[in-house]
């Protein structure tokens, strides 16, 4: 049951992330410039295979559920709950702590993670507190 809830939280987070990202694309010239950069596939999943991937192609970001056969960057989380906890944190260092503790494994091009960090920082922007609060409520 806990695993199921954790996975649902992860799916919710990925969906909200896509919405935030698209809104940022409308409102931020910097995000539009970033979206014009080279495409990639960023897989975010749990060790049991739950999750999805973001695919940037031709300036359009898509979210697909499931596993991509050849992602450019993969984050494999020990659980959906752990992924959710770290990814809603406004402390960028949380992911590094999780990596060191073995709660998150990664493969591929870490530049994509930096790209994502930048877009999400802009996307969360001035109302990052509300976004974080909304997501934290889901955590509870």
């Amino acid at each position, binding site marked *: 049951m806990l695993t199921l809830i954790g996975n649902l939280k992860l799916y919710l987070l990925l969906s909200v992330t896509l919405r935030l990202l698209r809104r940022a694309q409308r409102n931020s010239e*910097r995000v539009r410039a970033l979206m014009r950069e080279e495409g990639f596939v960023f897989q975010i999943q749990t060790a049991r295979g739950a999750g999805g991937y973001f695919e940037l192609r031709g300036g359009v970001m898509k979210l697909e559920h499931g596993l991509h056969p050849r992602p450019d960057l993969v984050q494999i989380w020990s659980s959906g709950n752990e992924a959710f906890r770290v990814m809603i944190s406004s*402390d*960028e*260092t*949380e992911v*590094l*702590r999780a*990596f*060191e*503790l*073995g709660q998150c*494994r*990664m*493969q*591929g*091009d*870490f*530049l994509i*993670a*930096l790209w994502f*960090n*930048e877009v999400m*920082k*802009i996307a969360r922007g001035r109302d990052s507190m509300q976004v974080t609060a909304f997501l934290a409520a889901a955590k509870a």
Partner: protein
Amino acid sequence: MNQVPVLIVGGGPVGLTLALSLSRQGVRSLLVNDRKATTTHPKLDVVNCRSMEIFRQLALAEKIRAAGNPPGANQYSAFAASASGPFYTVMSDRHIIYQPVAVANRAIQSCTDGSLPLESMQRIAQMHLEPVLLDAAQADPNIELRFGWRLYGFEQDAAGVTALLQDVDAGASEQIRADYLIGCDGPNSRVRNFLNIDYDGTRDLIGELFIIHLRSDEIARLYPDRQPYWHTWISRPGFSGLLVSPNAGRNDYVLHRPFGPRVGESLESIVDAALGTTLKYEIVQSGPWRPQFLVAESFGRRRVFIAGDATHQYMPTGGLGMNTGVTEAHNLAWKLAACIQGWGGPALLDSYEAERLPVARRNRDHVKKCAAAAFETNFPKTDQLLDQTPEGERNRREMAQAFESKVSRMYESLGMEIGFRYRGSPVVCKDPAPEPPQDEIRYTPTTWSGARLPSAFRGDGRAVFDLLAGQGFTLLALDADPAEASPLQSAADAAGMPLQVLPLNEPHLARLYEKRFVLVRPDQHVAWRGNEIPQACASIVNTIRGAA
């Protein structure tokens, strides 16, 4: 009111380099610095090849080497479970950059294809570099230093800049009138803020890292010949970090961690974990810091410019923070001198931003790739890494391969250090030849206009760089009669632009420098090249002095 040609705000390495470079061009400056002394933190740990070339031009290379890593000591970068080992790999001889300076300089001296810099890099801490630069500035009659003074504010008009300086302790203030004001005042640059110039990047992409400065006479014994490696990257299940020895001849070390102490962790427990054993050491200072990948949107307005950390903030992966600033100061100094001496045209100072901002962005992108590479090196790590099993052995090999293939770009990128070009600069004559390939790692020697002149030696062992004019431009005449240069000399004379003709009648130099005539700027970049000197050279001279 006190008058000075150039007022420099900031007495770190970039501000001091600018003052010394201006003096070499015969220009006086006043440098103010709100701190009363040079830094006591190790900060940077490398003066890269290009900066060393610049310091050689300023007759400081040997003094800096004397204050840094001993010439026979290694500049290795290793990857290990801890400073006690096991070591997955040590990068020691795969590139000139890891070699002791004495060894590297022999390779440089015997290089004939221009593929190596004139100077090898120098492993040194900023706290030991700054006193060398400060001593040189104090001994220079063209430089007035005021440490313990800050810039309070300034206004600029068509003829100059009026600045209000304030004594940090006494509060006394003084007005200064300068032709130009340059802010080398760091990441929180007051000058940049007064100019209302922001950064173009997004802050805090990586978060808050942590740094510990320690001293120990015992750590050296963990390394062969008691000679600590320059960098020991540490990675094992549950721990990662970087132990830096800025100078194998001293007992200062810096330990970087990707985040601050966790609950229950002490500084000592972190140091012990990095060392992999219990040794005596003293923690000097520690604290969090936030790496950035930022470049200023503009490098100045009219008579006020910025340089160094005021124009860019980089994560130190790649060692391009101060080193980018040194090349900025070098670029700016001769242009300021030209304008003060009257031969620089109205567009010359504008070319500072046109040339340097693209380099700052290119360097930022490179540093970001290096940072990503450093993280990626840890990706193959498994819980079996340190097991004495085939799986453990395989994992250690994977880690070593990842390190050598990825992190090596941080050290071996001569394409970044000496391969940057002022492509499309308004003060470089457009080269009709197609641009040669440019790579971040591999340096391609070329005299394509805008590139740094490849370094080479004459048959008698003298470096061509050492023969270039101290002030003004140098025309290299390769197997050519210097008299052919008279139309260019006449045009330069008419514009008041200093020009020296340097005949080089050696086949290997003629091959390397590609054309019979190569016109080199005071900052050692090519401004124009050709096989014939045009009869009408005014357009060349006017372009390169910003008066076209």
